């Protein structure tokens, strides 16, 4: 097998790949931020002492955990436009609808998983932490901010980082509805050049770089937790 990266590194193909990489990153970054915010809201609502709110959050989480990511993307892309108000649909269609629907599906899915990670982070703390904080004269908010949340975040960090990796990899599924992200771009270049190995090698290198960075972050969080646990 003779490799010829020159064949695919023409200005046009390079531009496709660069654009694909940027689209993947944009999809990942925006979905991550929206997922994190939504997950925080879900945790707050889901732990409130109000039964209907708890049931709604549980239903949201179960829906997103028990249906394949790809199907969720299809539901948003093929089914939702029929259900949304016409004005919304036409606005979305005018603004790169593929990207927007993929983004919505990705961030809602990730939010469901992240909210579970955060919730179990909070639950892993013994109740006495709050009681001890209050007994020492701290207010509810002070105890939350200075005692409970720092520990909960630390406990939830490794699974959250794992979920971020899953989200990053899931952005590749957006190609199924025609978002020109990295996987889509590499497949296009491959179709035109038949340089399968070279194209997929470049696309894989892209995924490796960010995935390994996220994994390294996860390993660091794990080590820090072990150290904090005094082991």
């Amino acid at each position: 097998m003779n490799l010829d990266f020159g064949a695919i590194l023409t200005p046009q193909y390079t531009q496709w790949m660069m654009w694909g990489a940027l689209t993947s990153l944009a999809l990942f970054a925006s979905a991550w931020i929206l997922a994190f915010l939504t997950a925080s809201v879900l945790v707050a609502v889901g732990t409130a002492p109000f039964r209907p709110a708890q049931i709604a959050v549980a239903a949201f989480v179960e829906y997103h955990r028990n249906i394949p990511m790809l199907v969720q993307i299809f539901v948003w892309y093929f089914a939702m436009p029929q259900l949304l108000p016409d004005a919304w649909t036409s606005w979305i269609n005018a603004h790169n609808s593929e990207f927007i629907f993929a983004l919505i599906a990705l961030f809602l899915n990730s939010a469901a998983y992240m909210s579970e990670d955060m919730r179990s982070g909070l639950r892993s703390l013994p109740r006495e932490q709050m009681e001890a904080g209050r007994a020492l004269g701290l207010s509810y908010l002070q105890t939350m901010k200075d005692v409970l949340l720092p520990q909960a975040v630390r406990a939830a960090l490794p699974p959250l980082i794992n979920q971020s990796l899953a989200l990053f990899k899931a952005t590749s599924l957006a190609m199924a509805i025609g978002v020109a992200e990295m996987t889509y771009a590499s497949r296009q270049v491959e179709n035109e050049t038949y340089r399968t190995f070279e194209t997929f090698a470049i696309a894989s290198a892209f995924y490796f770089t960010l995935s390994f960075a996220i994994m390294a972050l996860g390993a660091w969080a794990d080590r820090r937790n072990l150290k904090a646990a005094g082991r």
Partner: protein
Amino acid sequence: MQDIIDILRNYGLLLTIGQFPEGPIGGLALTLILALTGLVLSFPLSVLIGVGRISPNPVAVKLSTAFVYIVRALPLLMLIFWAYFIVPLIIGRTVSGLTTVIVALVVYETAYLAEVVRAAILALPKGQAEASRSLGLSYFQTMKDIILPQALFNAIPSILNQFISLVKNTSVAYIISVDELTYAAYQVNAQLLTKPVQVYIILAAIYFIICFSLNRLVKLVEKRIHTSRQAPIAAEAAA
């Protein structure tokens, strides 16, 4: 609602078993076959890799660790594309989309299942291996007769969880037109054209019912295993 019933009446068979028996099997049946094949084939490999990750042999550790990290760093879709390219190179002839997907799923799943196996081994008390070695059993005997039977039994819930994630991952086979459930639904939608909401509600509902019930099953199994592993210890403590 009437639309959903009509679609189920007209296309229900297509969604559950595809063209079978006139043609190849497809739909939900193929989804489950893919997931089951993926689990069965990746299980022995993952035990090998999982044990390799914590073996006393540094070469085995390096190789298996590299495998796990490389596979976990790539999207499943990328693995499917690689399999499409590499498998024909290795066996010297073109292969079907079905084979490609199975190869990719097995490689992907092996990496995740290997971590499950590794975690299950590490969760056993160290004394198990030490006692066995001091009784004169070799490393391999210890693994085979003492460590793995306990570790794999404890890991059953996690293995079932991996099966659920496999069921969901098979949907990616749609991208290379393998006629599993998602692809079948896509085709039904293409034929009907005007009923995407109903078709995708049905599709989502089928996956939901399967994965949700499997999830409940895992919880039950988890409880059973927990009590059966705790009971002897509790009995011993009481004696």
